[in-house]
């Protein structure tokens, strides 16, 4: 019986998909179809509250300090933030998985060195490390992606290593070794497929951390530089005007909240499904 359709049991997954689909619609449809410019505004129409009509254009979420339409900026900003986060997490997953598998497979010194590097990585608050590196190499979108990606590998390495340690002892790995497969072939052809599942789950659970981190860096003005909007930039720029125009801060925050809740619910649901299959 397909229990995907059991609404009561999967209510959280349905809510997660609804939230994430709304966000996806926002960051795909708005930049493509919404007629207003996210970068250039009308200086005669600054700080208009949500649902104001200026000329023949409706501003559903209002305008900012330069008269730019907030919906247009929010759509583009969400898309850019998500792009950064997705690319960064790909770097984290690939790096973490490879290093974790190497640590688990070879053990000994390789293991010690890699796992101590994990400890070191986790001992410095991410935000501090990222700010430090960004301050040195300069703020740009490319740098931000690399820095977020490279600093996020540690948890993926831990999980990949733990799973590799389990799989390494299985008979088919012994068999592969007996027929003369190289270490690399065993790692990538026979161990990797066992790790993809857990890493996917971990990725959905790690995504919220990256989203908030990217937004924090943007909020501090050390992320992608203005006038390009990102979720963090929008809140950071809106911060100066909270007395005058609190919608500039409220709506981007709601998008972040929806994204994080969506990812968390989806992750929890995936964990639960994986547990049920194991049992």
């Amino acid at each position, binding site marked *: 019986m397909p229990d995907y359709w059991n609404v009561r049991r999967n209510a959280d997954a349905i809510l997660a998909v609804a939230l994430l689909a709304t966000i996806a619609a926002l960051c795909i449809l708005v930049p493509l179809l919404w007629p207003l410019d996210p970068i250039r505004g009308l200086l005669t129409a600054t700080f208009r509250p949500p649902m104001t009509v200026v000329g023949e254009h409706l501003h559903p979420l209002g305008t900012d300090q330069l008269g730019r339409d907030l919906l247009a900026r929010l759509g583009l900003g969400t898309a850019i933030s998500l792009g950064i986060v997705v690319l960064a997490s790909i770097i984290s997953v690939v790096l973490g998985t490879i290093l974790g598998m190497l640590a688990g497979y070879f053990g000994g010194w390789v293991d010690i060195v890699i796992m101590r590097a994990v400890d070191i990585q986790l001992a*410095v*608050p991410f*935000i501090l490390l990222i700010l430090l*590196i960004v301050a040195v190499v300069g703020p740009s979108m490319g740098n931000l992606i690399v820095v977020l990606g490279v600093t996020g590998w540690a948890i993926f390495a831990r999980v990949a290593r733990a799973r590799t340690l389990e799989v390494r002892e299985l008979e088919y790995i012994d068999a592969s070794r007996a027929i003369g497969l190289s270490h690399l072939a065993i790692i990538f052809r026979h161990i990797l497929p066992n790790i993809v599942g857990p890493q996917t789950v971990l990725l959905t659970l790690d995504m919220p951390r990256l989203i908030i981190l990217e937004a924090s860096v943007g909020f501090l003005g050390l992320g992608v530089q203005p006038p390009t909007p990102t979720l963090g930039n929008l*809140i950071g720029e809106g911060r100066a005007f909270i007395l005058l125009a609190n919608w500039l801060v409220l709506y981007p925050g709601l998008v972040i*909240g929806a994204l994080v809740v969506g990812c968390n619910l989806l992750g929890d649901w995936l964990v639960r499904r994986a547990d049920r299959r194991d049992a």
Partner: protein
Amino acid sequence: MKALSFVAGRALQGLVVLLGVSLIVFFALFLTGDPAALMMPPDASRAEIDAFRQAMGFDDPIWVQYGRFIGGVLSGEFGNSLRFQRPALDLLAERLPATALLALVALLWSSLLGFLLGTIAAVRRNSAIDFAIRVISLLGQAIPVFWLALVLIIIFSLKLRWLPSSGIGSLAHLVMPAIALGAYYLSAITRLVRASLIEVLGENYIRTARAKGITNWRIIVHHALRNAMIPVITVQGMYFASLLGGALITEIIFAWPGIGRLAVESIQTRDFPVVQAVVLFTALVFVVMNFLVDLAYLWLNPRIRL
């Protein structure tokens, strides 16, 4: 004997971590190739940069420089702040009490409330109140610190005019930063306590206690919570790093004069000796916290025969 070697091993691991962080902090400056150009103001002339490079010893081989850096760190000497022309460590020491106060208050209220909510949710599992607590903790983890802080300011400072929006001085100044900083932590603790307690309540010894006719309240307080605390304690160390990271943002928004604000200001003004001092200090706190957590783990769970 085994416990002793466990403790020594953990202490050694902590030292390795600190050494690693010192490497990161030191070599981060060389990412662009020329630390002298990085540390001087952008309008400095070529000759000024060269003189500065000479004075700071950036022409020496890199391992000599690293040795000098470590030697300095061990004797508590991080060099002078480029911005204030004062020892970086003094600046750190001045700002530390503010951060410690904020972090401790945030930790205290969120841990106490988190334990309470988590316990209620676990005991009344699948009830309406459990559902409400789970929704709150999910939202608490979803809301970024800076957004929550700004919303608090909008409500309590701008609309209601109850609390000051920034600065330090009175108890009223502490309320919003402590709430903003503790919110994430509250959610994390609540979720952990709930999950952990539900697991413990399913154990045989709890059923035995119930069969003996011990009251529900006594079972939870005396028999279940102690064991439920073990996983909670073990992740405390991990969360502590995120707490320090959150303190950074919170301090910026509420103009709280702590080390987080010092770090961001120093990064923005390229005051690298201060940045190095703050990062290394944070790592030290993290390592010490984790070490204490390991000790607590040993003490809480005598079943662990190492």
